[in-house]
């Protein structure tokens, strides 16, 4: 899932400094699951903004709403008209939602309430970690299911660098060395031959370095 985190309150207040009527718009997709942009977080953020503006002597009118998803056009239909009533719409969806609103509702002043961070998993309550870089050229079958592109600080392809000590990454002891784990896993599975083969230089185009990516499936096209 996409993991995001709320921007600092001051930054948001700064963003809406000239706004007098605001819609805080949540999303029940990924951001709701990672407890950043669902119904509950919409309520909390709206209250915080009201208080902040009140304290600054510039009270604000804020409405709250949460859509099923902000990344599918059908759910955004109502906003095309409703949005115009507000000076700004503060989206609590991931960056995709913000972009999509901007695309679909040209007359709406959409603002981001969150920083979209990574594709990750929920390690435990309140803890998420990156597991995928969306690089578009998956090599997990060669690495025991563990992603060196997303999980190695240098996205190495050919084994751990010289900074790997005791299974930890040199950039931070809290970070496990994913290549150490890959080595152990492949050796344990008697697939260590994979560790001896030289992985050629990557084609980074699928990961976005070839320009904005778009995917088309003919069979599903209208």
């Amino acid at each position, binding site marked *: 899932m996409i993991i995001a985190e709320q921007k600092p309150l001051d930054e948001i207040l700064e963003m809406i400094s000239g706004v007098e009527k605001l819609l805080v718009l949540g999303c029940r997709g990924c951001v709701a699951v990672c407890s950043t942009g669902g119904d509950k977080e919409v309520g909390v953020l709206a209250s915080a903004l009201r208080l902040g503006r009140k304290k600054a002597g510039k009270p604000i009118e804020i409405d709250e709403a949460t859509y099923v998803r902000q990344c599918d056009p059908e759910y955004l239909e109502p906003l095309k008209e409703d949005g115009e009533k507000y000076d700004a719409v503060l989206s609590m969806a991931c960056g995709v939602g913000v972009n999509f609103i901007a695309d679909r509702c040209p007359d709406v002043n959409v603002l981001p309430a969150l920083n979209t961070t990574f594709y990750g998993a929920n390690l435990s309550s309140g803890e998420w970690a990156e597991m995928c870089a969306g690089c578009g050229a998956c090599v997990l079958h060669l690495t025991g299911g563990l992603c060196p592109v997303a999980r190695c600080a*240098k996205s190495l392809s050919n084994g751990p660098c010289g900074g790997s000590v005791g299974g930890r990454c040199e950039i931070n002891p809290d970070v496990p060395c994913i290549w150490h784990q890959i080595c152990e896993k492949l050796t344990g599975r008697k697939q260590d031959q994979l560790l001896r083969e030289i992985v050629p*230089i990557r084609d980074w185009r699928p990961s976005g370095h070839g320009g904005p990516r778009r995917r088309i499936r003919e069979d599903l096209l209208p």
Partner: protein
Amino acid sequence: MISGSNLEQVLTSGQFTVTGELGPPQNGNFDVVRDKARILKGHVDAVNITDCQTAIVRMSSLTAGLVALAEGVEPVMQMTCRDRNRIGIQSDILGASALGIKNLLCLTGDHQKFGNHPQAKGVFDMDSIQLLGMVKAMRDDKKFQCGDEIKSHEPRLLLGAAANPFADPFEYRPIRVAKKVDAGASFIQTQIIYNVEKFARFMEIVRDLGLHEKVYILAGVTPPKSVGMARYMKKFVPGLDVTDEVIERLKGAKDPKEEGINICVDIIKQVREIPGVAGVHVMAIGWEQAVPEIVSLAGLSPRPGAQAVEPRLRSSESTELIVSEAKKDAKAEIEKALEQAKAEAQASRDLVVKEKERVTSEISGLKRQAEKDKAIAGQKETEIERLNAELAKTRAGQGHAQALKELAEKRESRALSSRERSALASLRSGLEALSKGLGINEDQLEALRRFFEAEFLLRLDTAEQVTVPSEEAAVPIEEMEKPDAEAETRHKEVINLVAKGNVLLHKNDAAGAIDAFEKALAIEPEEQKASEGLKKARKAYEIARPAEEAAAPEGIPPCPEGLSPEEWQRKWVIRLVARGNVCLHKGDADGALEAFKLALELDPGDEKAKAGLLRAESGEVAPVPVPAEPEVPEKAEVPPTPKPRAAPVTEEVKAEAKKVVPVPAAPTGMEDLSVAELPKEARSLSERAGSIAEDQFTEACTGVIREVSLDEGEKALTVGGASTLPFHLFEGDMPYVPRVAYDVLDSEPEDWPDVLSKYYSDVLSDPVAWARKCIDDYGAEAICLSLVSTDPNGMNRPSSEAAKVAQSVIEGVDVPMILWGCGNAEKDTETLREVTNLVGNRKVCLGPLSDANYRSLGATAMAFQLPVVASTPIDVNLAKQLNILLENLGLSLDQVLMDTSIGAVGYGMEYSYSVMERIRLAALTQQDEKLQVPFICNLGREVWKTKECRLPSDDHLGDQERRGVLMEAVTASTLLLAGGELMVMMHPKAVALAEALIKGMMG
């Protein structure tokens, strides 16, 4: 050649390579790079130019590399993947190649997090292995990474990579090296090594993978500048293993910088020993000044001259620099030549001045002499007149007075020639001597007169060459002839002789005087003055002789330099006693008697000499036993049972035209291995040398090897004492013959070849019986009990048990014993201490003492006054150091035997020989007191574990026993010639051969 770089040439030449490192500055200062390059120039084969190391922005490696190149220092350009994608990297590589860079080190690069721009986007378009592959393809396949062709001028770079043996997972590290090699690396530089042991394990896997044959591995080292730096690296640099030992050394050091350099040098020396290490990479970033010292201390300088280091770009400054340097060189050369010419001129000027002075002084000397002569001549003339007058009065009637008068007249009538003047001067001085020494009395005056007359007459009559009258010259009168008055001549001769006698007597040469007087009496027996003189002379002689004897006792060679006469006499007595002992040993009772008597004359109180004399007088002479071949049953498969023989058997057999005293022949092809006597050279060395003076071929030694006694009592042995190189008996003495001890194992040997074990087959399981057999059957003079059973890696018998076995052997034999531990320092300490507790006062020799246990065992040896064996690896300095340590401990070197480690023939013998020879030369000719210690050579064990002693008999290699015996005997011979004093051997036949050699060499 891949790139033809200097680094590549040094690496491929097989020399131990040294690379350095240069960190470019964090600014645009050209001079910084140039200055660092100048420090490193000539001390390393190539220099790594780092590429923004630890992700801190610095001058680019390409630029700094070009500056270094312009200074004549070959750069290894570092290239990371952090800051450039494949487009940037390939572009820089083309540029580098164009400008003459020939080495490239391919790195992934430190993560930007560590640097001063942690916000930077890390590129990491590829990793180091992919980078290697890409550059290799550019070079070898002439293709860019995308596959496009490089149409010409492809970059020719020697590629290197890094490896970190201390990163995890450890087992994967060598595999990653293999990947780098496969990808294109020709050399590898490792992370900084402090933990050499771990690096050695890494190298072991590297060798197992065969990588050391595919790639040159350079071990990374860095001198720690301070404790703080070492601690920082240990704590904060991931993948760097700084050992506690390094931190402790720095902590304890007075000068941490110097210690840091020492640590670095030590590590270089250690890694150099690891197989597969082709060189070192010295990283002293920010401390480049240390590199020349490190390289030199590590014994790696000078470096081979740099080749193919040619910058393509030259700044005008560097051109000027080159020109100015060339000028400087030329100027220096000219100045040198000028200096030399000046010195030569000065020298010749000095010579002229000196010559002038010499000539002047000569002339003035001659002038003085002439004046003196003139004066003397004047005196003489008056003297002659006076004598003439006297003569005329007393002997007017005698013919020769007339003659004399005539002569005097004649003399007056002509001028004196210079020769005559000098003759007169001599006469005058003779006269003075006589009148002073004896007082003027009439007889003497008369003698003088006659002497004077006779001489003068003779000279004038023969009118030939003048013999300068002196006491020596008086004798040749005999040869002269005076035809008309024979009796008179004889008379004159007698007078001359008497005069001579008196002069000699006056000079305290009583013997010469006696001789002269006796000659005089022989001519004229009645001559009174002569017989009186003779009496006087004899008396003087009697008085003088005792004093002379006290000053230089008869029979003692002159005292060598560096010794007082007392010391020399004491030494000489010891040698005489030793010579006597040797004679006894050889069966030469007369020689022994003579030696002991001489010794007692010099020192009547010497106990050893007395004891020896008693033995010599009682005719007690040691027989030389010959080992008997055990009887081998006809079928070879059955292990042979040796049958002890009561007495040695000898018979004469001719072999190779030598006189041979063989042991009974065995049916195994051993016939010609019998103990032969060495053919003796009948003529002495000086005879053989012919007319060559002795001092041309002899070289006396000034040092003396210490004497070490093993055991006490009748069978005690002493070794050492040599004052010459081994067997150079024409130059000095070897008072004690080299000895052989039999090796006895304290547990049954499992892997002995049959050809050896058959000699002991009935006693192998019983060390006491074994030792007795060596003594009784084979005539062993000493036993070395090897405590092999105590080895913790073998049987690991407890010390207490082993000590009991040793005790029973020690108590069961009466010859000197050497106890030789298993070589494990701790266990040996335990076992040998246990033994000394059990056997108390028996003076067994303990060994081996190493640097690990010399304190504990040395203390034991001091407490019980036991001799010890000081064992060191084959090295002069280590041997000396251990001796010094033992002496510092309080142990006298008179108790020490040196074991410098032995290799059998074909197994490092040349090292053993060379080290022993060097030690002996230092001891004898350089008076290195710490090395004046006898050698013990435990060689049997080394010989009999070799392949050559273990392969069975076959047509190609011949008989196994013969082979083994010869191996052992030749090893022993070599060690004897190197100076070995005590051999520890195994095969009785080899022992017999060695002893025959000793006997032959000792004459």
